[in-house]
């Protein structure tokens, strides 16, 4: 059998058996024989001539430039598909594994070797096609799956995600006040992961704020009024950002495929309303009746320009809701953040203002005319849908409550810590969000294959 090109347990390793060298083998583009120097000069092919021949074809591993005729070109294919006889000579482990000698191996060699031979055998056209396909796939990977997507979505020209910062208030009331149980940890973990994913997807910044009641606040006036400080810190930390989105921990972004730009800010004017009379649960007199104020303060819509909107808040059944709101970098915002908390107001009202900043803001809105022309309201279900448990006194309200058919953007489990099951609600909404945002393949499996299977066999199957 001296005809056969020797099988080699080392893939691509060249001639494993010294005495058997093929007169044809060199032409089919093996790599330089690494074990070549061990060849005993018992054959007709000297090392020098083999090397020369190999070098002659080395640049063209897949096809021979020497037109050696049909048999020579296809000889290797034929032989390589045959079962191989493992002679195992000259192997270092031959001593250890004597039993392995002479065993039949089917297409010996690792997967890598097989792949390599496949590449060698493919023709040029196929290769180019494959490369193009691979290139497209790589581009897709690079731009859709990796951090690069994050960067291009952030950039001003392509996405503008840099203009948005999500501020997530984690660990509210925790710290010295109370220990967290496993459910609280689970809520926090899920909520943070949800926002992280969303921020990464669209190139926004996410600032997770530890709102735990610190010791330094525990006996101070400003206990748990940190919303203002936090927003101010973020203004400083993200100097490129324009809009800051405050989110409470008990919120869940149900539709991560909505970007803030397309969902709200590209059409801020039409997505918000300036005239509170459109939905006015607090019965605020609007606009101001006082005649000494200027026209802008007395107009129901301020100056009516989108550029003058600096604060976007939703209203629930009982007034403003600061569980999810937007605030924009501006001088006006600096002023608002500055006067939002005031010791004189605090001293008089802190027993009354259960919701702290929220009540204080309502008070400012009601009493200080400079606030109104720069505040806009957003329909609650745009950024802050409630589950049925919240605001449920008057039954289901289409302005307030989440509806999966409309694919609401964000759900806020407001007030779930007062006698409702926060973790249960969070879990349900998380699963619902996954269900609503299944990929095509998952839909195919679950809505078609599983259903057909159920009809055929009567068994429910999970794919």
């Amino acid at each position, binding site marked *: 059998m001296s005809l056969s090109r020797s099988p080699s347990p080392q893939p691509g390793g060249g001639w494993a058996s010294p005495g058997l060298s093929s007169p044809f083998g060199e032409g089919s583009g093996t790599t330089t024989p690494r074990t070549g120097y061990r060849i005993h000069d018992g054959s007709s092919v000297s090392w020098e001539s083999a090397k020369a021949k190999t070098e002659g074809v080395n640049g063209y591993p897949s096809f021979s430039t020497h037109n050696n005729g049909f048999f020579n070109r296809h000889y290797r294919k034929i032989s390589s598909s045959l079962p191989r006889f493992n002679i195992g000579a000259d192997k270092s482990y031959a001593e250890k594994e004597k039993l392995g000698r002479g065993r039949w191996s089917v297409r010996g060699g690792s997967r890598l070797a097989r792949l390599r031979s496949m590449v060698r055998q493919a023709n040029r056209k196929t290769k180019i096609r494959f490369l193009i396909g691979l290139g497209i796939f790589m581009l897709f990977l690079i731009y859709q799956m990796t951090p690069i997507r994050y960067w291009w979505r952030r950039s001003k020209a392509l996405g503008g995600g840099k203009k948005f910062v999500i501020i997530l208030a984690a660990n509210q009331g925790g710290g010295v006040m109370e220990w967290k149980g496993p459910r609280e940890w689970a809520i926090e973990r899920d909520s943070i992961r949800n926002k992280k994913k969303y921020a990464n997807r669209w190139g926004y910044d996410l600032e997770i704020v530890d709102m735990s009641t610190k010791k330094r606040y525990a006996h101070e006036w400003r206990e748990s009024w940190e919303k203002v400080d936090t927003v101010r810190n973020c203004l400083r930390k993200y100097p490129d950002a324009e809009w800051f989105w405050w989110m409470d921990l008990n919120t869940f972004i149900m539709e991560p495929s909505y970007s803030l730009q397309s969902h709200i800010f590209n059409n801020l004017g039409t997505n918000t309303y300036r005239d509170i009379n459109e939905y006015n649960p607090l019965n605020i007199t609007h606009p*101001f*009746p*006082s*005649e*000494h*104020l*200027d*026209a802008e*303060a007395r107009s129901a819509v301020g100056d009516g320009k989108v550029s003058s909107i600096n604060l976007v808040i939703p209203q629930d059944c009982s007034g403003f809701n600061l569980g999810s709101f937007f605030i924009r970098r501006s*001088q*006006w915002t*600096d*002023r608002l953040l*500055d*006067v939002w908390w*005031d*010791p*004189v*107001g605090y001293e*008089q*009202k802190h027993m009354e203002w259960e919701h702290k900043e929220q009540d204080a803001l309502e*008070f400012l809105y009601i*009493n*200080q*005319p*400079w*606030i109104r022309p720069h505040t806009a309201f957003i329909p609650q279900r745009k950024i802050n849908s409630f589950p049925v448990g919240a605001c449920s006194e008057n039954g289901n309200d289409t302005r307030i409550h989440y509806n999966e058919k409309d694919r609401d953007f964000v759900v806020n489990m407001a007030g779930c810590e007062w006698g409702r099951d926060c973790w249960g609600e969070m879990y349900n909404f998380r699963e619902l969000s996954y269900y609503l945002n299944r990929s095509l393949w998952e839909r195919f499996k679950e809505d078609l294959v599983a259903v057909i299977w159920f009809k055929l066999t009567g068994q429910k199957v999970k794919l």
Partner: protein
Amino acid sequence: MHMAMPSRKSSTPRPYTPRSRGVPMLRRSRVQAIVLGLCALATLLFTISHIFGSSESIPSGTPPVVIITVLDTDHYSKAYLDTIKQNRNDYAKKHADLMLMLCYLDYATFFPETTDYDLAGAPSSWSRVPAVRHALTKFPHSTWFWFLEQNSLIMNPAMTVESSILDKVEGLMLKNHPVVPPDSVIKTFPHLKSHQVDLIVTQDNTGLAQGSFILRRGEWSKFFLDTWFDPLYRSYNFQKADAHALEHIVQWHPTILSKLVIIPQRTINAYIKGGPADESGLYKDGDFVIRFVGCETGGRDCIKEADQFSKQWRAVFDARS
């Protein structure tokens, strides 16, 4: 396709030079003419839009400074209030560019619907805040608003707000100066430029003097006045009502402090002898303004005190006209 060599020229030369441009109409001279024409058109449109379009332009005859005085018709005689009005009016007439605005404390005549502005039982001195806000509305194009309390007289018609205060404010302002004397921790900003100044006040022995201050129109002025007028301050029973409320917001809110300058007292707020001021704050002849601070209490009589100076200001005013 990449060629190693340029293509060969044809061996038979053409009888004319080929045109360098494809479009025959666009000769250089014509391009110039077209560009010039477009420029002229743009200029014309721009001018027209500025003449007819913009509503923001300042109408002629707008007073640059508005003086605001709130008159207390309940407690003072009409004759006295008339002298005060005349004083302001005469001063305003001397400077045709100044305008006078008089607000009566009796809001019933001025603000027909006072329900929101009955001050909720707070002292009547609070009325200066909505009065200035009202002036901002009434004179929508004026830049500076000078609030001057009723019990005071303008003594020197030669001085104007612009030339003696606004233009010199960078030199006049007290830098790094405690807001509340003698040793408040909160101090005025050391590096303010005149264009950053929105509020000019003075200080007497007791604190910030809110009887005479100058405010610049802008978003900030609305914010400032509305914050000052917050109902929670009015209901708080500050000992000196609006004066203490002003000190409070200046000290607690840096957005207010950063726009404020304190200038020497006598520039716009000289006191009559006996007022709560140092020697440097008491009135001397030639000062801009005299205020009869505290004349409404302690057995003093504002009308009498004003009388002493009435002849003086009339004489000075007449001499200059």
